[in-house]
């Protein structure tokens, strides 16, 4: 860089630029906070859904699956699993319940988590709630 461009100019760009974009980011965050309720399906959040999120977290589901595309890429996307399973929470429960304890020879298999009926209902309701979030049309198709 030439001598015309001095270190103090560089420093000013760093401080000024950072400060400006931190403020812009906060402004956008503030606006997002008011926009999100129109899209986040919060009407569907119940005690049961809250329990479902706890079951989701305490069994580390994100360690294999993605939820709205975030997580691990070892097992299917679950943000739209309610739609994929024919809008049936019973189908979701049936799948989770039926995982073999010792796995499937040579194949990936979801562990058997031995969830209670209450937990099974809750995780299914949680996935149904997430399914209702407005994700701007993602995923592109039902396969996630």
């Amino acid at each position, binding site marked *: *860089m030439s001598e015309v*461009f001095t*270190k103090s100019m*560089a*420093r000013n*760009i*760093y401080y000024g630029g*950072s400060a400006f*974009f*931190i403020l*812009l*980011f906060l402004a*956008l*965050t503030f*606006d997002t906070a008011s*926009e*999100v309720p129109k*899209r*986040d*399906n919060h009407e569907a*959040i119940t005690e049961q*859904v809250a329990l479902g999120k*706890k079951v*989701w*977290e*305490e*069994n*580390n589901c994100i*360690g*294999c699956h*993605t939820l*709205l*595309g*975030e*997580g*691990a*890429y*070892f*097992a*299917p*996307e679950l943000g739209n699993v309610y739609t994929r399973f024919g809008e049936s929470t019973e189908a979701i429960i049936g799948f989770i319940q039926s995982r073999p304890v*010792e*796995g*499937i020879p040579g*194949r*990936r*298999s979801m*562990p*058997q*988590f031995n969830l209670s009926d209450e937990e099974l209902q809750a995780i299914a309701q949680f996935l149904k*709630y*997430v399914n209702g*979030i407005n994700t*701007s049309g*993602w995923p*592109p*198709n*039902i*396969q*996630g």
Partner: protein
Amino acid sequence: MKYQSQAVAKPYFIAAIGLFIGQILFGLIMGMQYVAGDFLFPEIPFNVARMVHTNLLIVWLLFGFMGAAYFLVPEESERELHSPLLAKILFWVFLVAGALTVLGYLLVPYARLAELTMNDLLPTMGREFLEQPTITKIGIVIVALGFVYNIGVTILAGRKTVVSLVLLTGLVGLAVLFLFSFYNPVNVVNDKFYWWWVVHLWVEGVWELILASILAFVLIKVTGVDREVIEKWMYVIIAMALISGLIGTGHHYFWIGAPEYWQWWGSIFSALEPIPFFMMTVFAFNMVNRRRREHPNKAAVLWALGTAVMAFLGAGVWGFLHTLAPVNYYTHGSQLTAAHGHMAFYGAYVMIVLTIISYSMPILRGQKAGSPRAQKVEIWSFWLMTLSMVFITLFLTGAGIQQILLQRYTDNPLPFMVVQDKIEMFYWMREGAGVVFLVGLILYVSAFFVKGGEREEITDSSGMASATSS
């Protein structure tokens, strides 16, 4: 070593390398599970292996950053570290907490770990990369506060350089942003939105400040180029990193329920994110070409140049590949994301930690540089690890593209598991490249034990050799 207290960096670097080995072993286990799904099932299910793999990465990089700070801050500040004892205590606290957490992941089911650590009181577990029990998270905050205090007091009481002030900014930012890991609302959109304030604002924000300051420090030392020149470059690079990276957070807000304007903000600003990395590459080569001295530590110079190039490729190029919203619509959460993650983390953060270790470890052991023979082994390990990471990335990119074509960008999308079977070949090749990476890592570690050959010893002002060769 100019200041005695720099020696506290050594255990941090040793712990970092030890945990790095663990990370790679679990990476190989996961790679195997991708092709042989029942491998180690149900003893080590994939989610547990992944948690260990990613958490070890984060912890060993933090060990590396802390070691780097303890090494370079006394030298920049021209005074001893405020409290070497605090640094030693925090080392053991962090190591024991980290080891217990990983053992917890491996020895009890995750739900049981949540119960044992009373996750109910303040539920923070079970979110990607933030899987640590709440009590561990609190421990991390305490260690970070003690560390930032120790480093901060040293910097503020001594000579203030751009390198040390930017490093301090990055470290404070790291500690402050981690507090968002305690915010875990039931509302999934808000949960995800602020989860990125830890994850994105770390790796594409404050960690870049840490990266830039460590790189600048090493370049000042090994090239002898005027500090003023290097600091000017550094300001411009970190300015661009924050200008692009802050709003660039928006590239994570496309499909999680946030307003759609993020598709514009995120696409435009994250398209700028390769710029600081490109500048870093130009900068590093420029400084080395204009060097005023031939530093005997050739390996450290190579790591520094490698960091700049690989960070540009991994974070810059591979990030840009899938960052524009219309592209990301098809690539989001595919193996392409994994490809980018691997090369970006290796190129930017693994390599910068290995750079500072390469530069400082010989000094901490009383030498100016490793013996030529040791350096030769280290340079071999550089190429083995770096090239195998390039291939891991290429194979995952192949897997990702095929996955997208079969599952997403098609009129007849196939189910996830059907597609996984069809792209198995890429996973085998990735695992092969992973084994080469492990060989590189073994070489890297062995370079510390290579004896023989001439070595340059550090001499103090009276000309007496202050180190003994072993």
